[in-house]
């Protein structure tokens, strides 16, 4: 059982690497969807005897619906509607961003056990996985040129925050988590609209063109 839990965390990090290295937008969206679905497993796997059953179930189902289905579907719809080219076009190349990602993951795994966290006793891989996923998301947001790829980076960053939230799952009321999920949903919605407008204005989603605006 412990090995399968390990496997979920390892797969989450491997998906981080995959998104960093993939040049196809559709493949990256699918990877983010798979990551969201994997994250929905976490509250179930890590639930202990004393955790509230409805709370855990709500969290898992909510994460699956929002992260695994709704948002990826919206992203796929946006890429189709805006007729976005399939390539990702990074500012930092794929190989350097993979190496940077690997360095961040190595640091996260090396130093996560040093962090003075008030909640011990949860799974050992939880904190390093969360930190490396946040790092990957950050890297994607700053190093990709296309708005869609940046939104993907934001989603991965939020996935990392969610993993960290599982650590605090016992203290967090359901309403707070529902609020976070709703926030995320709204944020992606707004980003979708913004993306659509950028695309209509410039007939491209290259955010570099936004900084060239002059009055």
């Amino acid at each position, binding site marked *: 059982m412990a*090995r399968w839990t*390990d*496997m979920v965390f*390892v797969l989450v*990090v*491997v998906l981080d*690497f995959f998104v960093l*290295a993939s*040049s196809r937008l559709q493949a990256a969206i699918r990877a983010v969807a798979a990551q969201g679905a994997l994250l929905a497993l976490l509250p179930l796997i890590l639930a202990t005897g004393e955790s509230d059953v409805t709370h855990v179930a709500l969290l898992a189902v909510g994460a699956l619906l929002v992260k695994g289905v709704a948002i990826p579907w919206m992203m796929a719809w946006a890429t189709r509607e805006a007729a976005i080219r399939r390539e990702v076009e990074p500012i930092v190349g*794929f*190989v350097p961003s*993979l*190496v940077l*990602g*690997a360095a961040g*993951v*190595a640091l996260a*795994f*090396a130093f996560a*056990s040093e962090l003075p966290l008030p909640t011990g006793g949860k799974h*050992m891989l939880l904190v*390093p996985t969360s930190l490396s996923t946040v790092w990957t998301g950050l890297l994607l947001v700053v190093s990709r040129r296309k708005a869609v790829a940046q939104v993907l980076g934001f989603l991965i960053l939020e996935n990392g925050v969610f993993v960290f939230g599982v650590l605090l799952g016992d203290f967090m009321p359901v309403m707070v988590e529902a609020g976070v999920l709703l926030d995320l949903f709204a944020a992606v919605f707004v980003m979708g609209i913004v993306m659509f407008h950028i695309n209509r204005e410039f007939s491209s989603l290259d955010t570099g063109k936004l900084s060239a605006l002059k009055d």
Partner: protein
Amino acid sequence: MLLSLLQLAAFLILPPLLLGIVNRVKSVAGGRTGPPLLQPYLDLRRLLAKGAVYSRTTTWVFRAGPVIGLAAVATAGLLMAFGGAPSLLSFTGDFVLFAYLLGLARFFTALAALDTGSSFEGMGAAREVTFASLAEPALFLCLVVLARATGALSLSQMLGEGLAGAWRSDGPALLLAALALFVVALAENSRIPVDDPNTHLELTMIHEVMVLDHSGPDFAFILYGASLKLFLFGALVVRLALGFRFPGPWTAFAAFLAGMAGFAVLVGLVESAMARLRLSRVPQMLVGASVLSVFALVLLLR
């Protein structure tokens, strides 16, 4: 001892059959009947019966290339444990010798290609060495992961009894290492996502370019050496993946042979399902394999 010798015999005899299986799987997946399974043996016999042609610009390096290449790969086979019995030759740290014997074979193949003085072969040699230099870190990291997980420093112990316990305690890390090793095996043996062994088109060739000027027995040595190398890398992947305990040495050996057939089928399926990657994307894939094995190492060291 008997089983060790039998394993050596299998290593020397079976590799062309492995290529035959790969080709057959590719044909069946493509809707063709394909060449007979034993076709690589017939090719080798045909080539051995021919005479060799040497260009006047070449020196002894060109003639030494295929012989040294084959000898180095065959020596590397002595260090490898094929399941059931330990390898014939084994000492602490022999995995370094294993990796560099393969490196020596590549070095002389590239040197022989440069010796022909053809710019085309020089280009092929440059590509081969570039990709090999990216595949080598991944190979070493995988071997280090194995050494760390089993606590042994010789190949036959790293792939021996200790592996079953290592799978139980560090399964995810070993799975990542096996995946990375499979990618390295495809790259090192110039199989499809990296290089297409069937084409003779100028722009796509990597390994095939370097051996264009070899003929007759020399070419037979090169083909045989290449199949030995595929067998060696396949053996690494299969031994790592079949890391559980078997009731006896003979069952372990039988399971290993079945695993090798499975490996050949897998390679054939990958080649049928995937297109060759663009040349600029190949380093990305190899760095990805290195990153996976770094991650496996991080999981172990934590």
